[in-house]
């Protein structure tokens, strides 16, 4: 209808010329128009991005010759079998464990913040919470890691705090715990965990807040009226309704921890995470096939994770 009206108007207003003709032609063929809109972005993302990903995937099916150190360009599962040796399984297990711990901890720490940001979101408080969450979220990643290097240093503020409060014994007890402890906080898993938690926390707060905002206030009041105590209301009303938001947030915290290689390199013990292993295999070792196969691991883990999250309705909370 609009096109016939348009040509009527066109003759009335007298708009002519090649541009007008082109505009008309495009208007009549929405399919062609969408195609023209998408040509550039799809070419860019398709060639630059998908092309690169595909190149990476192919290389994971190549293998490296142990004697010459050269890459053999023929199809093999050998590199994937290498993933199953104890060293690599150890790395994968450690990374997944850390990602799980960081995700659970950030859900716990984020909840009260998200709750208040969602419930008291009016006027000045709304702006306050918005900026209080956005500013740390968008602050430079490296600056945040650097801040923790300052905090966790031997001569730094955390040790000073423990000393001033005469709690040195407590700190030593923490560091004496096998595996997660170490010589000092900055070379222990506790340190790595704290930095991960700090850096990814805002990514958990945001979707959680969005989910809690959607829980009608009168549900909580009804629960209280019916005799539910605050814990029961939380456990049986708020938590199930906010769960999609928590899962949405966990996608970020989990995925970001799986792929990070800078934080464990700067704060942590010398034992590797997936990201570090990938980095060293592709760099000095020149073992691109193994590096490529290792990157497939977080992709597969995340694909499964996303599939489960989608079934739980987490995408609506994003």
């Amino acid at each position, binding site marked *: 209808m609009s096109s016939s009206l348009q040509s009527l108007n066109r003759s009335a*207003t007298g708009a002519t010329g090649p541009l007008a003709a082109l505009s008309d032609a495009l208007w009549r063929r929405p399919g062609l128009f969408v195609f023209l809109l998408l040509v550039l972005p799809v070419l860019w993302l398709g060639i630059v991005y998908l092309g690169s990903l595909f190149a990476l995937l192919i290389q994971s099916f190549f293998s490296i010759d142990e004697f010459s150190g050269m890459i053999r360009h023929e199809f093999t599962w050998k590199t994937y079998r290498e993933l199953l040796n104890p060293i690599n399984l150890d790395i994968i297990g450690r990374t997944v464990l850390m990602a799980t711990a960081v995700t659970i901890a950030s859900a716990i720490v984020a909840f009260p913040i998200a709750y208040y940001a969602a419930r008291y979101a009016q006027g000045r408080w709304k702006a306050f919470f918005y900026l209080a969450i956005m500013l740390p979220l968008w602050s430079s990643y490296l600056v*945040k890691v650097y801040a923790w290097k300052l905090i966790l*240093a031997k001569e730094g503020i955390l040790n*000073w705090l423990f000393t001033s409060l005469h709690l040195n014994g407590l700190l030593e007890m923490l560091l004496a715990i096998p595996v997660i402890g170490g010589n000092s906080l900055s070379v222990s898993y506790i340190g790595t965990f704290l930095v991960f938690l700090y850096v990814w926390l805002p990514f958990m707060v945001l979707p959680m807040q969005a989910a809690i905002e959607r829980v009608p206030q009168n549900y909580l009041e009804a629960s209280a009226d019916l005799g539910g105590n605050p814990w029961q209301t939380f456990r049986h009303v708020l938590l199930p309704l906010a769960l999609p938001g928590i899962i949405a947030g966990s996608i970020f915290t989990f995925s970001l921890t799986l792929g*990070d290689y800078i934080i464990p390199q700067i704060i942590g013990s010398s034992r590797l995470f997936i990201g570090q292993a990938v980095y060293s295999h592709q760099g000095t070792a020149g073992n691109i096939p193994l590096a490529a196969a290792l990157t497939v691991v977080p992709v597969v883990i*995340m694909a499964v994770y996303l599939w489960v999250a989608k079934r739980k309705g987490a995408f609506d909370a994003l």
Partner: protein
Amino acid sequence: MLKLAAGAGLLFMHLPILLIFVYAFTTEDKTYQWPPPGFTLKWLAVTWNRADVWEAMRLSVKVASVSTVIALVLGTLCAAAVSRTRFFGREAISLLVILPIALPGIITGIALRSAFNLADIPFSFWTIVLGHATFCVVVVYNNAVARFRRTSGSLIEASMDLGANGVQTFRYIVLPNIATALLAGGMLAFALSFDEVIVTTFTAGQQATLPIWMLEELVRPRQRPVTNVVAMVVVLITFVPILAAYYLTRGGGNTRPPGN
């Protein structure tokens, strides 16, 4: 109790960044000693006169500007196509846009690097831009899609009915409607690119952007006071676009960032 936990959580999110501001003025230059033995403005001047810092800063600004322009074009085109019409593969397009940021940065980085190697492309300014523009598209796209949804399609029809051609309609109807969303998206894209380090370590050759410069200092600290000042400046620089984007999209929109 819950209030206390929320307050503690917010402090946890902000104190570390505030700490950077204190360290930028410490007189101690060999260790990360706390409390600082004294305060001085000397390091601001020292940093100001550092050629390497300026060079890294200049490269970062250049990369971020070019990447933002590319992301603005690609992101707006995608958003226009996805929000105006329903077509086959619409979901695939939005997935394609989000993917570079949804997958861990190390995957994007190593994928690009191995592709450059396979295609014999030497590392340069443009290889950095190629990577950055790819993951910046999504922030522009998010902002533009949100705005397109709120813009009534009949405005465009009316303009065309009244005899405007496509260029005129874009210039006088579409652009004024989406301008603030694009500005916000562009600023967030700039901030994202300015701060990016993981993909950049794979796509930069010998050149150092500001984050690469900082990463080297983090791994092997050589000039702690200068790093302290640079860290403070970076925090201040990234705050500007965030605050601006907030005021530009207050009625809605999307300033939620993607991952790293």
